[in-house]
């Protein structure tokens, strides 16, 4: 168990290192190698030669690539100074970079977006897991019934309709026609929990519809397969009620593999639900990424990319560790 734990953690650290190398490679090294001037990318075409040279010195763009990478990692771990003569720009650890275009550190910028994205992802996840699993179980138990067919048709719609379609439709119906909800917006939970809820409910439902569909289909298929397992027959042969057989023995086996998929989905969502944030005008990480791309603000794009990768790696690590708790065959095998 302990060695498994250590193995997973070491793995995650290595993955993160590889991720920083690749990201660094793309954002710093490739322009250097291909001969385009990265300094130009960082400050924009309109800059004069003096500020271009300043940027070059600050970012150390004339250093060998491994040295640049070393400074980059140092920034992540211990923070760094971008200096050109007396002109020093400080960036605190974990330094994901400095946006010379907007004159601010990337890390605090992104951190301020995390509550929005986290609220969106958490609320949607609660909804889709509950709805998806419940629908899947009921469909499996009433296989072939009207309910099953209706649920599976709905699920098919859910997986195949893109979010900008369902999102716009939801906005149109619930806000413009019915007027049931205020415009979607993010209010910090601690400021006003009710506004937090009403401002996010529509994006949650829309996002949950997409994911719940997949979870319903998976749960249904897993449950049908599980109900044919010998150990389910054993559970029945002991005289357990159908409720215990399905709700305990069946569900336990059905939910375990879902944990992995959930981790992936949740991690991806944390990395920024670009479309959803766009459709509902929420200023989270996805929105930030989009804005940065539009403005060609390389340090922010790099920061979002790295942060997304970190989320995914960390969530995967958590899933792996969780899995070893809930599946004894992994823990002891």
């Amino acid at each position, binding site marked *: 168990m302990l060695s498994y734990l250590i193995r997973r953690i070491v793995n995650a650290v290595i993955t993160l290192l590889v991720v920083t190398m690749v990201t660094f490679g793309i954002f710093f090294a490739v322009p250097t190698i291909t001969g385009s001037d990265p300094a130009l990318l960082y400050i924009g075409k309109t800059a004069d030669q003096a500020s271009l040279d300043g940027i070059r010195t600050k970012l150390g763009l004339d250093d060998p690539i491994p040295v640049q990478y070393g400074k980059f990692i140092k920034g992540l771990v211990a923070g760094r100074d971008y200096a050109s003569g007396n002109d020093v720009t400080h960036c605190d650890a974990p330094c994901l970079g400095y946006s010379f275009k907007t004159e601010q550190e990337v890390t605090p910028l992104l951190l301020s977006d995390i509550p929005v994205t986290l609220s969106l992802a958490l609320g949607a996840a609660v909804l889709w897991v509950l709805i998806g699993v419940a629908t899947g179980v009921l469909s499996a138990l009433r296989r072939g019934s009207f309910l099953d067919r209706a649920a599976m048709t709905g699920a098919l719609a859910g997986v195949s309709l893109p979010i900008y379609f369902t999102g716009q439709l939801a906005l149109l119906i619930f806000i413009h026609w019915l007027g049931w909800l205020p415009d979607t917006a993010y209010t910090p939970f601690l400021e006003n929990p009710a506004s937090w809820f009403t401002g996010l409910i529509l994006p949650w439902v829309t996002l949950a519809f997409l994911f719940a569909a997949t979870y319903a289909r998976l749960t249904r298929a897993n449950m049908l397969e599980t109900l044919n397992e*010998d150990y389910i027959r054993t559970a029945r*042969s002991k005289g*357990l009620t159908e409720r215990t057989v399905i709700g305990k023995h069946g569900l336990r086996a059905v939910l375990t593999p879902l944990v992995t998929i959930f981790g992936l989905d949740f991690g991806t969502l944390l990395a920024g639900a670009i479309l959803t944030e766009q459709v509902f005008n929420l200023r989270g990480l996805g929105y930030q990424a989009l804005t940065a791309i539009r403005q060609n603000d390389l340090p922010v794009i790099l920061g979002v990319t790295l942060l997304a990768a970190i989320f995914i790696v960390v969530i995967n690590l958590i899933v792996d560790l969780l899995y070893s708790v809930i599946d004894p065959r992994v823990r002891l095998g």
Partner: protein
Amino acid sequence: MSSTTTGTRPFLEVKDLTVRFETDDGIVQAVSNSSFAVERGKTLGIVGESGSGKSVTSLAVLGLHRTRSNAKVAGEIWLDDQELVTATDEDVRKLRGGKMAMIFQDPLSAMHPYYTVGAQIVEGYRVHHKGVSKKEARTRTIDMLARVGIPQPEKRFNEYGHQFSGGMRQRAMIAMALVNDPQLLIADEPTTALDVTVQAQILDLIRDLQDEFGSAVIMITHDLGVVAELADDVLVMYGGKIIERGPAADVFHEPQHPYTWGLLGSMPRLDRDVRDRLTPVKGTPPSLINLPDGCAFHPRCPYAGRNGNRSFTEVPELRGGVHAVACHLPAEEKRRIFHEEVAPNL
């Protein structure tokens, strides 16, 4: 075998049991018109090759086809004067694991991968003993594990099925089945995957526990040796039908069905060289969707033509008193063939 005039039924009496499965390929006639009985303290052996309907028969007794929407069960099953085919799901559920219990083929897949062996036994005990605390149930479970010969039961209580060896796993399955002192125990090939020494230990264990509790036991097996050793009565099944039924001694010393002769020929014998020991019955088992006309065994039976055409056209009924057989061959002829042609080669 039929109900007696005094009105007392055997402890378990199965009458005309028929089990069909509707599948995409057609209707599987898995068990047809099976009738048999077992008394308390007695052991009934059921033998027959793979697919002959042994497991389906025992699952029917426990009412475990009820949750399969494609299964149709007909006939009567009387357990201690209660009819089970027409009983409610809830009534049958209460008997399962309590008055009647089953040890399954392949204990690895029969145990839940995510629950400890102990937890699975505790659960079975508590469902039939309402109000028993977890601690009492745990003590009872550890007693049972010790009783079936599992060393260090406190430790093994907290382990999972896949951590057990084959033999230990089967013992744990037995403990699970016996935890509520069932009066009817069905053991479905309890020793198939085990090596010979462990096999013998498991069979001894079942016999000892039966002696202790006076339960009725149904022992399902491919292995006639097991039946010869343990059973009071024997059923031989072929293609979902009982083709020979009687006291074990009679069936072994005067077997009357050509298929049983074939099975006896495939029985391992220690006094022969390994190479000669096993001669399985030639040919393949019949399709249960399209049973052959007449006697289902005729495509594989060396005596099919001996008695005119009846074997090919007419289904032989199970006839006889205590020792009954389903074969068109006349009684004298069967006796003669067995003693002159079959027995010398066994």
